């Protein structure tokens, strides 16, 4: 276990050390102490390492992550795991706005709640939120899955493309072109796998599925009022 104290180590040195790890590194376990809300922590990683941040982080923790598993024991600021490519990011507390924004792969797990615009413009990432998510979540989401064990705020999935959204609780309102869809056996299987990987104690049968009505895929003047 490598322990880095951010109270004494500059952010640049920390990120450079983590980014220098390669596929066959034998330093696979890292612990960061005294993060104190620092921004851009553990960004741009590209190795199968495990990084535990003991505390809360600022903006963009684990941004553009590849392969690594990053665990935040506190809460995460805006844009946690933004544009993640692969790997796993786990936030034990709450996540602020834009969690998993534009993420292209990997798994983001938020054990608490996620704020507004969770999964905005996501492009293949899977996001599992044990609590609830805020308004405009899944806005213009393109691919991947959002799973919410709690409730969803206003305008869920507005202008959605092909992302699937599963919600166990209530949805305050759906955004433009987002509709409830039939839960077929293949969706149950996708959901079961995600819940298991996210350590979530819930049954897939308790969820409803939401997706795109695909009415806005090609501009049609008769739909202009829906925007």
């Amino acid at each position, binding site marked *: 276990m490598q322990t880095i104290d951010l109270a004494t180590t500059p*952010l*640049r040195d920390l*990120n*450079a050390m983590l*980014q220098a790890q390669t596929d066959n590194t034998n330093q696979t376990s890292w612990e960061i102490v005294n993060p104190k809300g620092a*921004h*851009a922590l553990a*960004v*741009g990683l*590209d190795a199968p390492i495990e990084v535990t941040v003991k505390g809360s982080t*600022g*903006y*963009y923790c684990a*941004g*553009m992550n*590849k392969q690594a598993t990053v665990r935040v024991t506190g809460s995460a600021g*805006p*844009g946690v795991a*933004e*544009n993640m*490519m692969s790997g796993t990011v786990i936030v034990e507390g709450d996540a602020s*706005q*834009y969690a998993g*924004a*534009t993420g*292209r792969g990997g798994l983001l797990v938020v054990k608490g709640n996620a704020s507004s*615009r969770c999964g*905005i*413009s996501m*492009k*293949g990432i899977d996001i599992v939120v044990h609590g609830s998510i805020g308004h405009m979540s899944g*806005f*213009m989401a*393109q*691919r991947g899955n959002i799973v919410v064990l709690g409730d969803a705020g206003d305008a869920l999935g507005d*202008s959605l*493309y*092909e992302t699937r959204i599963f919600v166990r609780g209530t949805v305050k309102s759906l955004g433009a072109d987002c509709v409830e869809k039939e839960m077929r056996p293949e969706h149950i299987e996708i959901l079961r796998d995600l819940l298991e990987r996210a350590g979530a104690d819930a049954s897939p049968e308790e969820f409803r599925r939401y997706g795109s009505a695909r009415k806005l*895929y*090609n*501009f049609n*003047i008769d739909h202009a009022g829906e925007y």
Partner: protein
Amino acid sequence: MDATPHTTPRQSWTFSNETNSEIRRAAVTGIYDIRGGGAKRRVPHFDDLLFLGASISRYPLEGYREKCDTAVTLGTRFAKKPIELKIPVTIAGMSFGSLSGPAKEALGRGATLAGTSTTTGDGGMTEEERGHSEKLVYQYLPSRYGMNPDDLRRADAIEVVVGQGAKPGGGGMLLGQKITERVAGMRDLPVGIDQRSACRHPDWTGPDDLEIKILELREITGWEKPIYIKIGGARPYYDTALAVKAGADVVVLDGMQGGTAATQDVFIEHVGQPTLACIRPAVQALQDLGMHREVQLVVSGGIRTGADVAKALALGADAVSIGTAALVALGDNDPKWEAEYQKLGTTAGAYDDWQEGRDPAGITTQDPELMARLDPVEAGRRLRNYLNVLTLECQTLARACGKSHVHNLEPEDLCALTIEAAAMAGVPLAGTGWIPGKTGF
């Protein structure tokens, strides 16, 4: 026979034939007009400025004999690896998707031969342009189509796009007919659907967030790459100041004549300021912050000639960027395709329905048959030649003003032909010492 004289039929200036045709088009379709390119209306421009040349108080340099340097370094503020260019003209961001693969390759080839950089666009980085561009600027856009850390690291600079001159405050739409399998794959969306490019970034708002976003990009790329911030010509003084505050190495300022792949005509013609009006406020912001030449300023939007380049530099820019002119150099709107332009209901020089993907010149298309019309090697050579001419013209004017480097050009080398241009450029009206708003007549 009626011998009474009649007045010549008079067309309305307000309701011109062009205006009326747009009313009829709108009445039939019920939708606004979408097109590519930049503002077509006449606005005060570099044509409204003149160089004074040398005189008794300033002596000229000998053409072709005395050196007039054109080298530019971009990104000297924070980046470990600034970009060194041989000429003060770069190629602006244009997306793969909007442009064909061979067109992107040609831009890379031409820019590299001329010793300058080219820029990706809203479709991610393609192998064609990375492979053929010695220096490639990677745009970081609201849509984040194709964005990934590997491409960030193999870029030579990163350009965070906040806005563009054709549509400050607007996003984009790549219509379904241009969304082939390859374009769709790079954008993680289904084939054939309209692809919206968002108008603002998904994970930051405002200058304080932008500062943190730039920190993240620098951390991911080891503080090597210059970070540009591209702004549309909306509020150039404040946007430049805020870009500097957020940590930009370079500010790219795009006036309303700057082109776009596709947006509403009403947006292109009615939002934003002319390029000429944007430069001095941006330079003033840099000077007020003590950052002129420390944070470089790249100006774009309607640059066509070496005179335009020289005038932009004289007003305080470090370099200029060209988009539309580069496409014309590749072969866009060439009269040799006139018969085909006619079939599309237009004419060479006026073709701007780039969003439809039926470009006879094979540039703004994804149609394999049309794309094949553009030879990227030949087109790249044409662009190289054109870039060389821009540079030679700029040097000619700089030498005439006695400058051994094009960056030594200054506002005092200029006068204006119109009151409007004098006010916008902050230089005297020709024949007077009057700078409207600054000095008495």
